[in-house]
């Protein structure tokens, strides 16, 4: 009995193992790609779902995870052919592509297999079709919706964070100077000026990295809402006044009108003159990257400056970027590496492996031991591209910001309004017009002349005061007060008649009183202004 029990038990185990899904982790075949979709740590977690894990030999090499480390977890280390033939579920980094032997990875996937990786379905139509032909179930890491619950599955943000950091490191390595400012015995070192274009995840990571290296950082984005995030990292947010919000759908920036881009180019060109390093991160999903740095702006940069163009994969934000190369143009090094994430492969693999495991866990049904999609679930619905060969992308609720519909609505740029209070405008104009009307009817000509002078002076005064810093309001008030003592001149003019009369006395008192005002006002202003001082003044000199 005992032995037969054993046999039954043994067979049961074997049946269970045979029924359990096999999860394959292939080696990435793109030469640019050093990441891997699972680390030994996440392999252990995947196994706990009750599946067997196959890892292609050398899969973790680029990310510094040895085959032995995978083998220790109990995963089987196999060759590519075996892996593709056996795996029911494949976890990958890059979208499937053509191998050296001419076979497409998509065609190697088991009929009815499951695949989770980056897919970019908008620009990879043929890939989606051939996967559909395999009756595959495909989840795209790049389609995970950017909602709070899905943050732990957001591979794009996790990658962008590393890319932004690395971009600064690449720039710093190529920059022939210090980033932080120092005062040394051999002279003063000025801190490097860094401009970060686009304050998404990558941009903010770049801001933080540059800031922590001691550079002076300014950043720019079309979405005014990110201003606070930029400033919270201690960088200056460049003000961009143009009436068209860049807030697109899904937390990304949207594509903007031509006039808008021209205005952006102008702002960047203006800043390019005095910055040392530019990191550009402006990418809109599925659309060629906007050319924000013109070649003119590059020419105007100092020799030895560095541009790192994170958007190089989508054509680059700089007109002179060459994909996958670091080229020197007009004395400026322009770095167009598209493998910034792979340059941090150990780290980015860990992050990617965690996000892909989180997604797998989310769609995993423990009872069936398989991927089961709930199409009412926002995350599942967003991420799924194919369900058993059926095309479910794009999800219905999302308006597609994709390449086949790149026509943005024509937006007429409006000039930036003058910073005068708009409510006052019409009232003011009306008052002036009626005043002028009355004056024209009754007043002598010299009155009209005076009125002209008066109104012009009002306009000048109105425009002069708006940009006074609040700290100077008291000195401003006391200086205007002193200046209004000009009424003294009126008193002096009235003295012209001479004599003892009341006119002379009144005028004399007026002069006296106004003079108190003049001397008191100016002197007290002088006293106040002397007190205002700047702290660093002492230290720097």
């Amino acid at each position, binding site marked *: 009995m005992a032995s037969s029990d054993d046999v039954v038990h043994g067979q049961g185990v074997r049946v269970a193992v045979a029924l359990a899904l096999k999860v394959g982790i292939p080696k990435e075949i793109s030469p640019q790609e050093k990441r891997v979709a699972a680390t030994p740590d996440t392999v252990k977690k995947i196994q706990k779902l009750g599946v067997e894990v196959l890892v292609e030999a050398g899969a973790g090499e680029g990310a510094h995870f040895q085959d032995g480390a995978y083998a220790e977890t109990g995963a089987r280390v196999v060759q590519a052919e075996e892996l593709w033939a056996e795996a029911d579920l494949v976890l990958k980094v890059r979208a499937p592509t053509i191998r050296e032997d001419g076979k497409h990875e998509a065609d190697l996937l088991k009929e009815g297999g499951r695949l989770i990786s980056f897919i970019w379905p908008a620009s990879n139509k043929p890939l989606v079709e051939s996967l559909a032909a395999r009756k595959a179930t495909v989840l795209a890491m790049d389609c995970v919706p950017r909602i709070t619950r899905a943050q732990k599955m957001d591979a794009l943000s996790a990658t962008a964070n590393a890319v932004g950091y690395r971009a600064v490191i690449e720039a710093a390595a190529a920059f022939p100077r210090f980033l932080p400012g120092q005062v040394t015995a051999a002279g003063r070192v000025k801190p490097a000026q860094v401009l970060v274009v686009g304050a998404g995840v990558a941009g903010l990571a770049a801001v933080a990295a540059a800031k922590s290296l001691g550079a002076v950082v300014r950043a720019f984005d079309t979405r005014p809402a990110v201003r606070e995030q930029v400033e919270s990292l201690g960088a200056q947010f460049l003000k961009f006044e143009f009436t068209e919000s860049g807030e697109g759908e899904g937390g990304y920036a949207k594509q903007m009108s031509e006039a808008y881009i021209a205005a952006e180019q102008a702002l960047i060109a203006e800043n390019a003159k005095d910055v040392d390093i530019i990191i550009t991160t402006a990418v809109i999903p599925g659309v060629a990257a906007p050319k924000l740095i013109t070649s003119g702006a590059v020419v105007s940069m100092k020799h030895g400056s560095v541009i790192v163009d994170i958007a190089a994969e989508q054509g680059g934000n700089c007109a002179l970027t060459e994909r996958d190369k670091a080229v020197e143009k007009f004395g400026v090094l322009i770095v167009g590496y598209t493998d910034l994430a792979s340059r941090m492969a150990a780290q980015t693999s860990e992050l990617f492996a965690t996000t892909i495991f989180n997604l797998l866990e989310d769609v995993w049904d423990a009872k069936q031991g398989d991927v089961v999609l709930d199409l009412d679930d926002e995350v599942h619905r967003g991420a799924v591209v194919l369900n058993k060969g059926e095309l479910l992308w794009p999800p219905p609720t999302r308006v597609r910001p994709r390449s086949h519909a790149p026509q943005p609505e024509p937006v007429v740029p409006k000039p930036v309004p003058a910073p005068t209070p708009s409510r006052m405008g019409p009232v003011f104009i009306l008052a002036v017009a009626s005043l002028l009307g009355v004056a024209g009817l009754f007043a002598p000509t010299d009155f009209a002349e005076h009125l002209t002078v008066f109104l012009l002076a009002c306009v000048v005064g109105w425009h002069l005061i708006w940009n006074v810093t609040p700290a100077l309001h008291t000195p401003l008030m006391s200086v205007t007060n002193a200046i209004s003592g000009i009424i003294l001149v009126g008193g002096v003019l009235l003295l012209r008649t001479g004599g003892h009369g009341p006119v002379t006395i009144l005028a004399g008192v007026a002069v006296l009183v106004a003079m*108190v005002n003049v001397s008191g006002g100016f002197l007290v202003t002088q006293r106040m202004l002397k007190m205002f001082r700047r702290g660093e003044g002492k230290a720097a000199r």
Partner: protein
Amino acid sequence: MFASAQALAYLAAAMLFILSLRGLSAQETARRGNLFGIIGMGLAITVTCYALMYGRDLSTFGEASGILGGAIAVGGIVGALVAARVAMTSMPELVAILHSFVGAAAVLVGVASYLEPDAKTEGAHEAEIFIGVFIGAVTFTGSVIAFFKLRGTIGSKPLLLPARHALNAVMVGAAIVLGVLFLGQPDPVGLPWLLGMIGIASLLGIHLVMAIGGGDMPVVVSLLNSYSGWAASAAGFMLGNDLLIITGALVGSSGAILSTIMCRAMNRSIWNVVFGGFGVTPTSSSSKGAQPAGKVHETNAGDVAQLLLASKRVVIVPGYGMAVAQAQHPVRDLTDALQKRGIDVKFGIHPVAGRLPGHMNVLLAEANVSYDIVKEMDEINPEFERTDVVLIIGANDVVNPSALTDEHSPIYGMPVLEAWKAAHVIMLKRGMSAGYAGVDNAICYNDNTLMLFGDAKQSITKLLAAVQLEAKAA
């Protein structure tokens, strides 16, 4: 020949005044701006005096020139003495009383111009005189009342007579009636009407400012600043002098803008400030709103010192209480002591803190606090979340969270310093009395708020001693 030279000199003076105001817009150029103003004024006065003497026979004119020289000398010396002596904490009073001088001068010049024998007698000229004198009189008495209110001679509570709007309307109406009568009279005969109007305008000035609460004083002072400009401009019209017109208009519009900026900072319209009688209704309306529970946490200087030394980022929010207690010097010493220990100290200034626009900045500058660490509301608000300790010194309404949360609060909608977002809030206060808006402050009852009662100067001095003691012990 000389007339055109005079006109050019006036033009130069006007340009210098414009440059002066322009210079005052930034810290770096402010002192140069003031210098331009002084040069412009000197030029204008010299040229006018010279024009007066030019071609005159001094034997018949000696007396007038004696009066002129005497008035300028005495006025100049008195002004200089006052300016040199005044304490920075009394700056609001000084500015207010100086405004009243301009008002008085405008009234005097207007009356003198009317009485001048060879003056033009057209209706337009008389109307100019009438308007100029009216503005001057309102400015004069209004500024005097503002002066007494700021000094504390008159209580800062608004005086709200029944039917005060009707009263104002009646006074304005009466002034207009008198104006019509005045214009109907031949030249010197209309004097009683003019003097009657001065009386009414004076009452109007008193009544208008009496009805305004202490918290709104920054707006009132800058409004009076504006009026003093318009008064000078009106004098320019009556004398046919472009320099007066231009300068008056510059000052007038500058004051108007400052008032607008202040009003925006309080989320109120200028009408609401001038006619609203703010600060009395709250007793009824705050009882309607969420009444904060009355439990506060009291603390002492030693505990606060420990807390300060254990923190990395400290923000100090000064208010009128710091000015009253003249605590700015001890505050600066405390700032230095903390900075010496590597603690990041910043100041957060609300636009209407104090009784004058920019009041706090002037006080901190007097105490030699670097203006780099003195931040405006928009700069400091995002930082509170990362701040360990906020030290609120005699500020109240400008840190009241009810302004954002309680729709029934009379200050609802006013942008405030969001000090309560910091990890700890230390509130230095004399007692539990309300601020000028008369509103109870919900921040006092927060769990992360500790109250340090007492005079601000004494409290800060104790705190400084405790900080130095703690630091030595550590």
